C-alpha cells in the first residue's frame, strides 16, 4: 500500500521538525563555517542549512563517524571491565541526505554486514535510522551520479523523499519506516499540481546531468592494468593527503587505537586512508605500498576493481566531492577517461 505524497509548507518546516524531534534524534546538514557544511545532530531546527548543494563531509558520518568509541574499559586490580558502546537508544533520522550519499549507504551496508562478521556499530545505527532523502534540483557540473547507477531524484534507499518546490516541500513516504512520520499535523495532502511540479523539476535536473562518465566495463579494463605504466604518471600530482577519501561517501577504511587514562580508557576507531604512507607501513619499517604510485593505484583499484569483485558494484556514487575539494585538482573523471582510453 502506498501513501499519497504530502506537502510541507516551508514556513512550517521548523514546527514539523520540532514534532519529529520529540521522537527522533535528527541529523541534518549544518553550516560549520561560511560555505562549509556537514551532517550533525541538531538541537533545534534553526541549525539546519539546506542552502548548499552538497555538504563537504558526506552523510556517512551518521553511521560511520570519523571517530567512534567502540568500548570503554576500566581497570580494577587485575580485572578489566569492558563496556561496549554499540547500543543506539533513540531512533534517529537523517534529514536531507542527497541521493548520492544514500546510494553510498547501500555500498557501506555490503561491507559492514558481509556475512562472516557484522559490524554492530554501523548496523545498529543503520537499523535505528530513518532516511529522509532530498532531491537535487540543480546538480552541479561535477556531479555524475547518473553514471554510477543513481540520479538526482533517485529514491532508492530513502524512507521518505523530499522535493523542494520553492515555497514548500513535496514529501513522499516510501517505506514503512518512513510512514511512521506521516501523522505529523503540519503535513497537507499534496495536490496534483505539486506532484506535477516535482516531476517537472526531476526532468530538468536529469537534463543537466548531460556529461556521462564512462564507467561500464571499468572493472574488466582494470583487471589488465595492474602493472600498467599509466600508474607511474597518474599519481604524480597527488599530495598524499586524505581530503578525497575522508570526504568520500563510500570510503570506509579505519584504524583502531586505544586511548588510555590512568584507570581506564577506550578503544576507538578513526577513519584512515590508503593514501597515507603510514597506513600500510609495518612495524619493521617495510611498506608494501612504498610510494604514491601504489597508494593512488590502491584508491582507484579499490573503487573500480576490488570492490566490484567483492560486491558487484563500483565504490563511487558520483557525488563529485573529491573533484571539488582536491587541493591539486586531481579529477577522478579524467582518470576514468584515461583508463578507458587504455
Amino acid at each position, binding site marked *: 500500500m502506498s501513501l499519497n505524497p504530502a506537502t510541507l509548507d516551508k514556513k512550517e518546516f521548523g514546527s514539523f521538525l520540532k514534532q519529529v524531534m520529540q521522537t527522533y534524534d535528527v541529523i541534518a546538514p549544518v553550516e560549520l563555517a561560511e560555505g562549509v557544511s556537514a551532517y550533525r545532530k541538531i538541537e533545534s531546527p534553526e541549525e539546519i542549512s539546506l542552502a548548499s548543494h552538497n555538504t563537504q563531509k558526506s552523510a556517512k558520518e551518521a553511521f560511520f563517524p570519523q571517530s567512534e568509541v*567502540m*568500548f570503554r*574499559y576500566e*581497570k580494577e586490580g*587485575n*580485572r*578489566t571491565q*569492558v563496556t*561496549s558502546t*554499540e547500543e543506539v537508544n533513540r531512533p534517529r533520522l537523517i534529514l536531507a541526505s542527497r541521493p548520492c550519499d544514500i546510494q553510498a549507504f547501500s555500498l557501506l551496508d555490503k*561491507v*559492514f554486514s*558481509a556475512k*562472516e*562478521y*557484522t*559490524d*554492530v*556499530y554501523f*548496523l*545498529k545505527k543503520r537499523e535505528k535510522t530513518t532516511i529522509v532523502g532530498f532531491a537535487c534540483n540543480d546538480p552541479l557540473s561535477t556531479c555524475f551520479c547518473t553514471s554510477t547507477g543513481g540520479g538526482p531524484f533517485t529514491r532508492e534507499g530513502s524512507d521518505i523523499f523530499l522535493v523542494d518546490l520553492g515555497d514548500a516541500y513535496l514529501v513522499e513516504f516510501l517505506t514503512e519506516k518512513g510512514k511512521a512520520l506521516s501523522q505529523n499535523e503540519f503535513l497537507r495532502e499534496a495536490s496534483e499540481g505539486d506532484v506535477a511540479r516535482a516531476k517537472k523539476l526531476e526532468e530538468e535536473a536529469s537534463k543537466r546531468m548531460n556529461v556521462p562518465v564512462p564507467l561500464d566495463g571499468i572493472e574488466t579494463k582494470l583487471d589488465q592494468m*595492474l602493472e600498467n605504466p599509466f600508474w607511474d604518471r597518474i599519481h604524480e600530482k597527488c599530495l598524499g593527503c586524505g581530503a578525497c577519501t575522508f570526504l568520500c561517501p563510500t570510503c*570506509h*577504511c*579505519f*584504524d*583502531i*587505537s*586505544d586511548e*588510555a587514562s590512568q584507570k*581506564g*580508557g577506550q*578503544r576507538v*576507531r578513526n577513519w*584512515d586512508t*590508503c593514501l597515507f604512507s603510514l*597506513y*600500510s*607501513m*609495518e*612495524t*619493521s619499517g*617495510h611498506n*608494501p*605500498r612504498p610510494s604514491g604510485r*601504489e597508494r593512488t*593505484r*590502491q584508491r582507484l*583499484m*579499490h573503487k573500480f*576493481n*576490488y*570492490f566490484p*569483485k*567483492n560486491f558487484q558494484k563500483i565504490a563511487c556514487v558520483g557525488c563529485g566531492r573529491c573533484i571539488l575539494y582536491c587541493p591539486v585538482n586531481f579529477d577522478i573523471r579524467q582518470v576514468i577517461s584515461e583508463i578507458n582510453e587504455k
Partner: protein
Amino acid sequence: MKNPYLPIPMVVKRTQVETADRMLRTLELGFLKEEDEKAFRFVPGQFCELSLFGKGEAPFGIASSPTEKGSLKFTINKAGTVTTALHQITEGQEMGIRGPLGNSYPIELFQGKNVLVIGGGFAFTTLRSLIIYLLQPENRSKVKDITVIYGARNPGLLLYKEELADWQKRSDMKLVVTVDAGDKDWKGKVGLVPNVLEEVGPASENTYAVICGPPIMIKFTFPKLMTLKFPNERIYTSLEKRMKCGIGKCGRCNIGHLYVCKDGPVFSYEQLGKLPKDY
C-alpha cells in the same frame, strides 16, 4: 548481533623467553570463561588479535595446536608498542584476544599426501601448530611423509627447542634444523634454508609444501621449490600484513580484492600470482 570487536578475556598462564636475544617470548593464555573456551574452535594457520587495554591490538598466529587443549600459545617478536607491552606482561595478568581469525592451512588437502614444512626464524609459529597437529596419532595416519626444514640465523634464535628435540627423536617425521652460522656448542647443520632444501631434495610428487619465513628466505627458497617441480597450487605460505580489525572491514590488509585477515593469511602461490605485490 555478536560484536566481533569485543575481546575474549584471557589470563596469562605461563610465559617463556624463546631466544637468546630475548626478542621472542611465548605467552600461554588460558580462558577465563568456560563458554569462551568451548566456542573457540580453530585450525592451524589461524590467528588472533591480542588485545592489551590502553595499548591496542596486534595480530599473531596461534602457535599452539588445537590438540593442545586448555590454552593458546602465541610467540611475540618485540617490535612496536603492543609487542613491547606484551613482553612486559606477567603471569596471572589478564588480557584479551579476538579470534580465531582468518583461514587456515589446507589440512583437508593434505590427506594422503606428503607434507613438506619449511620455516625460517620467528615465522615458525603457526608451523609449530601445524606440525603438532599433524603428529597427533589420529591425524598422523591421514598424511604420508612429514618433512620439516627449519632454519634460524644462529642457534640462539631457534624457537621451541623442547619440541625440536622431541621431533628429532621421532621416526614418523624427518626434521632438519639448520642455522646460518653456528657457535661453539652447535653440532647440527650449518647452511641457509634454500641450500638445505636443495640438499634434502624432497620429492614434489604427491607433496604439499608450506613455507613461512622472512621475505629474503622465501625469495631464495621459492626458486628451489620450482626446481624440485612443486606446482604453484601446492605451495602454501602465510602472509603478514599490517592489520587492525581482523575481520575484513578496515581495509588495511587489502591485497587486491582480498583481505589477508579474512581471505588469508594462508595463500597458495597460485593465488598470489594473480594479486598485486602489495605485501
